[in-house]
């Protein structure tokens, strides 16, 4: 509860009388002018310093589309090579690079970023917000994505691309010569971090930036899916990032995590990869269901049937998807009991998926359907996806998987699920939302051409592949002998691939052709009911003219006066009196307004930070460690400047008029602030990554008869104990600093902060000394112990920077007893760090002596 709520009851919800009160014409004109200038997009080359999600979202979408087209061209080359047996169009090595990059690019550079791109663009409008809470973070994420994507993709032009398949199984990938594997590991880790940043932005957006009154049960379904998928990214990507870390430590420093001759185990990578990889499939699939959930009610002209069924199913799919990963490993010789369990779990996911599909059917049934281009694409999606789903049901039966695993049957299955569960619905979404994106319509004639070309080409290409696989053709072969019955099937698939390409050519032409002479689209061309169709035509950059009070799931259908009132500025924040960008922050469950959030404006700092972060990841691929470290320091510096100058600055006035008689605070710390939520969410991901490393430790213990090996040197017990005590002391002092600062005892708080930094330094040093004598290249045991210590050490150094940042804030007046958001966030970070330090010290100090 905010302080404000304690003093006087909020004039919320607004009375009908207040809403009906007209805004004088001249005031309205002045408001429009002020808003327009606050939100104006920068001109000329400064345009690229834009940070608001409508610009960044647009760049993101186009970049992801470009990467998809590149990966598509790779697929065409692959299909050409396979058109006839013993073809020598390209070499085996080139082919292996191409299929590795095709898969990696489609997954990491297209499927996931496309979801984030579309969501970044759509979400503020769906929620009735001006923008999301962290515009500069979105821009930073975008620039990381662009730099990382171009780096990874361009490796294929220099013949040094990764070539061990998109799941990079060691030992093949760890032993691979040349920088290919490093490009994959570091380039994609860099992009994964950007994806995590976007996930944090989207989750906080859904939780805290909804229009007043939009309780969680009134949110558009799309927002629910964003929440589920954001949560999945948060728990799925960290195991992969942890795996990448182990993998890169093996490649660069020869720490033998996956080398069986020194106690390592290639199976650990498979577990970590698929703990990521399977949720990834649903991370790709659910957003498309989300788009479908927006299109279906519109074409049926009825609210969705079974809203809560759908929400529960989406959450259910999210949970279940983390318990299925072993079905990618059915042929690795795991015990029958595990296979049985994961077979059953994999089948169970059919139920929530089925509920969602049948809820869409039910909606169409009760509605009066108008056929439109988006619905045509949804129809195609359903046909393709049900086939992919049904082959998925077959594959989940472990014994059947023994036959078709790693064959073209799988290639067919995964393309059916990804085309049906991603490409077709996303294109449906493009046709549906294009008037919102571009304020123009796409051509229905070209749209039908594109549909029939892609749909028929797709089936021509991939339906025969089921049979190719059953006839014994393994995937990832660069060529094959004649006489096995595969020739006609492969040639058909190749022809189909080019028909798909023709369809995409039509679609992309329609999408990108110049539209200067085309008329504006109608404001709500599909007569939809959700808030994004309250957009302004011609385009305005302010998001919404005023932030509406929402009481229904389909406000444009169910609140007849809403649109007019929004346009006339009768709702919240109709003005920008300080000339700054602002949006409303509301409470998590019932969306009561709690705060006017000042948003950051255009800046080059995200780009600068992204360039240096990129250097930090890219230089090590070529063994250039010093430039990498330098870039890392510069990136850290840029991020500090960014935080210092633009976040949690004490505002000029403590409260402001938000419209409709509502006066709201302009500064918050703790759970009322968006920053606190962002740290919370980020640290959940961080803790997941750390748990994955600990999982590695116990995995080795269960997989090996003797772990730790007899006679192995352990981390020094005394030093580990000192580290644990020092880190806990440091955490306690941070908590104390926050308390005393709140009680106006600023001097004591500063002293506590200095002491806490010293304690943290002692802890890090003690930890380093504890593992110093171990030789991590000798065996996997010292290697994993050193990794755990390294993880805590790096986090402690970060924690020390944060403590000093707060101290500097306190000394310069940025952090005061009332304005202590930074200290609140740092305390939260240290809560997590204290817990992980204790876990780490127990695992490296106590566990080996007990096991």
């Amino acid at each position, binding site marked *: 509860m905010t302080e404000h709520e304690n003093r006087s009851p909020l004039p919320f919800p607004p009375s009908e009388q207040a809403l009906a009160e007209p805004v004088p014409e001249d005031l309205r004109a002045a408001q429009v002018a002020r808003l327009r200038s606050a939100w104006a997009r920068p001109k000329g080359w400064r345009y690229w310093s834009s940070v608001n999600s409508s610009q960044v979202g647009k760049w993101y979408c186009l970049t992801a589309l470009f990467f998809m087209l590149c990966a598509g061209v790779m697929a065409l080359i692959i299909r050409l090579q396979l058109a006839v047996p013993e073809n020598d169009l390209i070499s085996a090595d080139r082919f292996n690079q191409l299929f590795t990059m095709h898969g990696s690019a489609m997954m990491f550079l297209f499927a996931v970023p496309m979801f984030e791109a579309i969501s970044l663009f759509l979400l503020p409008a769906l929620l009735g917000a001006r923008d999301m809470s962290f515009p500069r973070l979105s821009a930073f994420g975008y620039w990381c994505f662009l730099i990382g994507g171009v780096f990874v993709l361009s490796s294929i032009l220099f013949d040094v691309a990764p070539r061990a398949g998109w799941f990079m199984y060691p030992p093949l990938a760890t*032993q691979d010569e040349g920088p290919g594997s490093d490009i994959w590991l570091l380039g994609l880790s860099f992009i994964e971090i950007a994806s995590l940043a976007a996930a944090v932005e989207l989750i906080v957006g859904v939780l805290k930036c909804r229009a007043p009154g939009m309780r969680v049960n009134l949110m558009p379904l799309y927002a629910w899916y964003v929440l589920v998928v954001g949560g999945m990214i948060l728990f799925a990507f960290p195991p992969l990032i942890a795996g990448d870390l182990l993998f890169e430590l093996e490649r660069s420093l020869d720490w033998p995590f996956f080398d*069986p001759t020194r106690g390592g185990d290639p199976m650990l990578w498979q577990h970590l990869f698929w703990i990521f990889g399977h949720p990834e499939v649903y991370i790709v699939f659910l957003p498309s269901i989300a788009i479908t959930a927006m299109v279906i009610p519109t074409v049926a002209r009825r609210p969705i*049937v079974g809203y809560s069924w759908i929400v529960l199913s989406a959450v259910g799919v999210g949970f279940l998807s983390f318990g299925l990963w072993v079905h990618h490993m059915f042929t690795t010789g795991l015990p029958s009991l595990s296979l049985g369990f994961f077979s*059953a779990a994999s089948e169970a996911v059919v139920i929530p998926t089925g509920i969602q599909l049948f809820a869409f059917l*039910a909606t169409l*049934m009760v509605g009066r359907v108008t056929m439109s281009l988006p619905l045509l694409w949804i129809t195609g999606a359903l*046909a393709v996806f049900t086939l992919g789903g049904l082959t998925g049901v077959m594959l989940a039966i472990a014994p059947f*998987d023994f036959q078709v695993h790693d064959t073209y049957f799988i290639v067919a299955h995964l393309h059916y699920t990804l085309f049906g569960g991603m490409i077709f619905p996303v294109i449906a979404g493009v046709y549906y939302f294009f008037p919102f994106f571009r304020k123009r319509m796409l051509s229905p004639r070209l749209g039908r051409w594109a549909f029939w070309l892609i749909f028929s080409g797709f089936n021509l290409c991939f*339906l025969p592949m089921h049979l190719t696989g059953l006839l*014994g053709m393994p995937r990832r072969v660069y060529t094959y002998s004649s006489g096995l019955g595969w020739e006609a099937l492969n040639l058909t698939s190749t022809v189909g691939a080019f028909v798909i390409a023709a369809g995409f050519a039509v679609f992309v032409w329609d999408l990108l052709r110049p539209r200067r002479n085309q008329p504006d689209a109608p404001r709500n061309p599909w007569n939809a009911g959700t808030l994004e169709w309250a957009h302004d035509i011609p385009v305005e950059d302010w998001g919404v003219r005023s932030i509406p009070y929402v009481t229904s799931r389909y406000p444009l259908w169910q609140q007849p006066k809403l649109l007019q009132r929004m346009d006339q500025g009768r709702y919240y924040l109709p003005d920008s009196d300080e000339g700054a960008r602002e949006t409303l922050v509301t409470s998590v469950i019932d969306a009561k307004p709690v705060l006017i959030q000042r948003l950051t404006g255009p800046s080059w700092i995200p780009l600068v930070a992204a360039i240096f972060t990129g250097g930090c990841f890219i230089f090590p691929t070529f063994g250039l460690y010093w430039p990498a470290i330098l870039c890392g320091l510069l990136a850290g510096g840029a991020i500090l400047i960014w935080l210092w100058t633009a976040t949690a600055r004490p505002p000029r006035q403590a409260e402001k008029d938000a419209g409709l008689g509502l006066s709201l605070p302009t500064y918050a710390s703790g759970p009322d602030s968006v920053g606190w939520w962002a740290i919370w969410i980020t640290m959940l991901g961080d803790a997941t990554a750390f748990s994955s490393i600990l999982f590695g430790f116990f995995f080795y213990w269960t997989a090996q008869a003797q772990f730790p090996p007899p006679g192995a040197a352990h981390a020094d017990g005394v030093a580990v104990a000192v580290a644990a005590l020092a880190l806990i002391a440091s955490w306690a002092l941070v908590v104390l600093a926050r308390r005393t600062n709140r009680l106006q005892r600023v001097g004591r708080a500063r002293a506590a902060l200095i002491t806490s930094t010293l304690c943290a330094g002692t802890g890090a040093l003690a930890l380093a000394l504890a593992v110093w004598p171990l030789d991590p290249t000798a065996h996997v045991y010292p290697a994993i112990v050193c990794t755990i210590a390294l993880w805590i050490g790096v986090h402690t150094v970060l924690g020390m920077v944060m403590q000093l940042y707060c101290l500097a804030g306190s000394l310069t007046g940025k952090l005061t007893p009332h304005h202590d958001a930074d200290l609140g966030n740092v305390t939260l970070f240290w809560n997590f760090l204290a817990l992980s330090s204790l876990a780490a010290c127990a695992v490296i100090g106590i566990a080996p002596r007990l096991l």
Partner: protein
Amino acid sequence: MTDRGNLPRGRAAFWLVVSLALAACDGDQSALDPAGEDASVLALLFWVMVAGAVVLFLMMNGLFFYFTRVKVRSQSRAVARWLIVGGGIVLPVTVLGALLTWGLTILPDHRQAGDGLRIRVTGEQWWWRVEYWPEGSDTPIVSANELRFPAGRRTELILSSAHVIHSFWIPALGGKMDMFPGRETRLSLRPTEPGRYRGQCAEFCGTSHAWMAIEAQVMPPEAFAAWLGTEARSANLPATAAAQAGMALFNREGCGACHAIRGTPHVGRVGPDLTHVGGRATLAAGRLPMSIEALQAWIVQPDRLKPGALMPAYPHLTRAETLQLATYLRGLE
């Protein structure tokens, strides 16, 4: 907005492909043309699942078509809710419950213990090291790139790998199993129909993953026993002058550093055992049918046939020399 004929046309295409599929199931490497107990069960499982899948596919898409094109008027909400419960919960629980019950009960069969013969297969880049361990023997009979099975017996395969992960798969005989360095996995197969079948590495294992095949020959048990007796013997001595010259070349070029030929001083273990190489149906893990010409082509430049192959090229040998060497090897039956 679109003409109505299109969806049924798509379905017609589907049926066309299904009927084509039925006609085209045979092949040396086909999972749908089973020659063993394990593969037969899986083929039956597949056909039953396909039948069920076709029904469910038509039902789901038929309903969608009906509600969007045929009966577009608004219909009862109560029925719609039942549709969610029936289609989303009742239907999958029933169908999947039955399927899992059947599917999981056949799971243990694939891991039964064998009847006596064990074959140890090790994945190499890119070929197969094979050792037969008949029941009670303590030394293996070493071979490579070809497997023979006694029909009607359950043979246990002990799988492992030298460097990277491979996967052992002979579709006509049964499912696949991955092969790991530093770890053993097991698979048992009971082939029933004598004949020749082809298998191929299924897990991507590097540059020439495409060229890592294996021949499997299923023989009546007596014929198998006789063959195994022959396979256990040392190599034939070269019979012709050309073959003798080839043997001399084999010595001169140091082939024995990597290859073993039992009964000669050559005991290399890096490459495939060549004791009975001439008796195999194919050369270089299924790359070429065995012949003198194939052997010559391989010796001169292995990596033209198998990119990245670890065997060095011998371009300095004259055609006459490679002919002699190939004649010698072809004679090792």
